[in-house]
């Protein structure tokens, strides 16, 4: 084991290198590029025994990755934002093939307007595709999650592709000390790939991805994917226990931060959770019983864990770094959905913040806790709140004057 200062992107590349993957079909896109540049560099200098191919688009990239996975090798690829959208058709296809592909998404807002800053509309758009989703807060978690993702995807009880998600810029280019495990430790946790399910073989012809004529057959296969995804929750927890035994770091489907005696809770994901935890600490200093629940696994959605963690809280603010236009925050709806049948449930308020990488300032977190305290016991909620400061509003007015257009 050694410790190095790594960006989120190079931590991701280290995870891939340690996973001893065979094949990387790639296509560059900001802010993911550093991952595939690092990997192609290692491959060309002989540090990794893998094949690297630059494809003509993300659509082709996902197709090649899935097809190689179906042929029986361990495959990795990565994308971001518009690239994920361009390859979107193939996410459903590859998940339907039930192949254990691991793919990283470095989150970035979607056009238009075009931007490089992160939010989660890209990855959340893929939540119904059949890919499982692990979301990371820091660089160490990125490396660790890649290793865990292969264990999860390749488990014969699961056999679904997995996304590991990290925020662009806030994590992709932030350097943090990261423990890089030794190869023999990793091999104990993640043995080399030997598929037990069917793959292409000259002596055993197989038709894969074939048509079904009729909804009854289609329903059967789709629902099998759902059951496998649900099964993945238990398998994931087993993997977390094995991971802790081998490497000493503890993960779960959710992370509870100062939650036990908390009355007012933030629900967040990804790197902004670090800001949320700092806000919880400041609130605690002021005597507010604050806590934070970080969602680490978004597919399968860990409903039971979430219910158990917040059922008895006074009020909960879901901070969505996404916007479902015409509806509001996506995670807010998902959290609300899993509480519907609870007799005792917290007051739930929706906040939309961090779109396109917009900062969430300490003052905005104070506003959130203010709303949570005020909201507990209220009869009606105004929902959702867009987090936007007075200064940001004034700046925007100036830009509009310059552009000369309302």
């Amino acid at each position: 084991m050694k410790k190095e200062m790594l960006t989120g992107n190079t931590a991701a590349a280290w995870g891939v290198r340690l996973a001893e993957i065979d094949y990387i079909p790639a296509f560059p896109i900001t802010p993911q590029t550093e991952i595939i540049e690092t990997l192609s560099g290692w491959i060309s200098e002989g540090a990794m025994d893998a094949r690297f191919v630059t494809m003509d688009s993300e659509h082709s990239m996902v197709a090649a990755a899935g097809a190689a996975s179906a042929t029986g090798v361990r495959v990795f690829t990565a994308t971001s934002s518009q690239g994920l959208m361009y390859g979107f058709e193939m996410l459903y296809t590859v998940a339907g093939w039930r192949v254990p592909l691991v793919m990283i998404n470095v989150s970035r807002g979607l056009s238009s307007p075009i931007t490089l800053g992160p939010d989660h509309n890209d990855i959340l758009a893929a939540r119904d595709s059949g890919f499982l989703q692990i979301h990371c807060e820091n660089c160490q978690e990125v490396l660790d999650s890649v290793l865990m993702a292969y264990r999860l995807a390749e488990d014969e009880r699961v056999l679904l592709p997995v996304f590991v998600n990290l925020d662009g810029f806030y994590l992709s280019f932030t350097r943090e000390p990261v423990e890089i495990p030794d190869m023999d430790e990793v091999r104990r946790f993640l043995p080399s790939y030997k598929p037990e399910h069917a793959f292409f073989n000259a002596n055993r012809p197989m038709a894969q991805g074939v048509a079904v004529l009729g909804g009854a057959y289609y329903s059967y296969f789709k629902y099998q994917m759902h059951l496998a995804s649900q099964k993945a929750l238990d398998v994931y927890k087993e993997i977390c226990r094995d991971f802790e035994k081998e490497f000493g770091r503890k993960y779960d489907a959710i992370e509870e931060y100062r939650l036990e005696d908390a009355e007012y809770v933030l629900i967040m994901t990804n790197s902004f959770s670090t800001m949320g935890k700092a806000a919880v600490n400041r609130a605690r200093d002021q005597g507010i019983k604050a806590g934070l629940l970080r969602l680490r696994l978004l597919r399968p959605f860990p409903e039971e864990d979430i219910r158990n963690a917040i059922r008895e809280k006074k009020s909960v603010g879901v901070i969505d770094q996404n916007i479902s236009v015409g509806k509001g925050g996506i995670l807010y709806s998902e959290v609300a959905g899993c509480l519907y049948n609870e007799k005792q449930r917290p007051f739930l308020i929706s906040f939309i913040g961090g779109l396109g990488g917009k900062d969430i300032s300490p003052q905005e977190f104070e506003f959130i806790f203010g709303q949570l305290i005020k909201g507990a016991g209220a009869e009606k909620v105004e929902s959702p709140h867009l987090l936007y400061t007075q200064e940001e509003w004034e700046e925007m007015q100036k830009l509009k004057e310059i552009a000369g257009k309302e």
Partner: protein
Amino acid sequence: MSTEPIKSIKDLPLDENLFPGTPACAGCGGLLTLRHCLKMLGDKVVIVNAAGCFTLLSIYPFTPFKSSWLYTAMACAPAGAQGVRDALDILIEKGKLNPGDDLKVLVLTGDGAAYDMGLSSTSGAIYRNLDFYYICYDNEAYGNTGFQQSGATPFASRTKTTPIGKDFPKKDLFEIWNSHKPPYLATISPAYPVDLANKFKKAEQYKGPKLFISLTPCPPGWSTDPSHTFKLAKLAVDTGIWALKESVSGEVKHTFVPGKFKPVEEYLKEQGRFSHLFKPERKEETLGKIQEMVNEYWKQYGVLL
């Protein structure tokens, strides 16, 4: 396989790698092409399919092939082929697959994907010199959705989206591919199985993209009698509308030039999709233009009709 050219239809392989009982339409020219191609390719093949009529050949739980099959999507079968080919190479390199158990990778696509949506991923695969076979069954329209215009639809052909006939010519896919200078590229016809077979024999010597476009009659779309498929495929060649040719590393050579070209009208008048050129009155100007396009094509190769 011996390298001696096949001289007669009697010398074609007797092996069948495509079995009857598929849901393809009666008289499907594409299926006839595929049958001949698979005789030559054998059964150690992975067919990577793009959305099209032939997607319906493998319907769960049945398959008419002796070989394997992977359905990808309309735009990306060549990319799927890249993944399969690379993975097989990796498995062989790492000693996990016996080279004797290697598989040929074949992309199977209609003209909709080949000429239009899949062109970018095809170009990418040729440019990367992917070692694969590619067969396009070109029935000159989107056949599987009921015969709408594609990039392959010829001038004057009626389709569901060109009800009065298309007013510009077919895309020249052969030349688009040829500009990439693949090791081997050919046009084929199910009516000329010996020519087809020899092209596969020749292609086998080359590592890299081996591309085949087959003009294939489509009885429902062309509004023709299913029993006329062979005759129409042959007429397409004999009138000079479909030139049988090949290109080795960019150099084009015709493999068959009719001794005496038949007038294109003989080919057109058999098909419902061109019936508006004959009734209620003959469209002399359009018929003349089609013949002129064929004459012009051959003239550039020094052949005068």
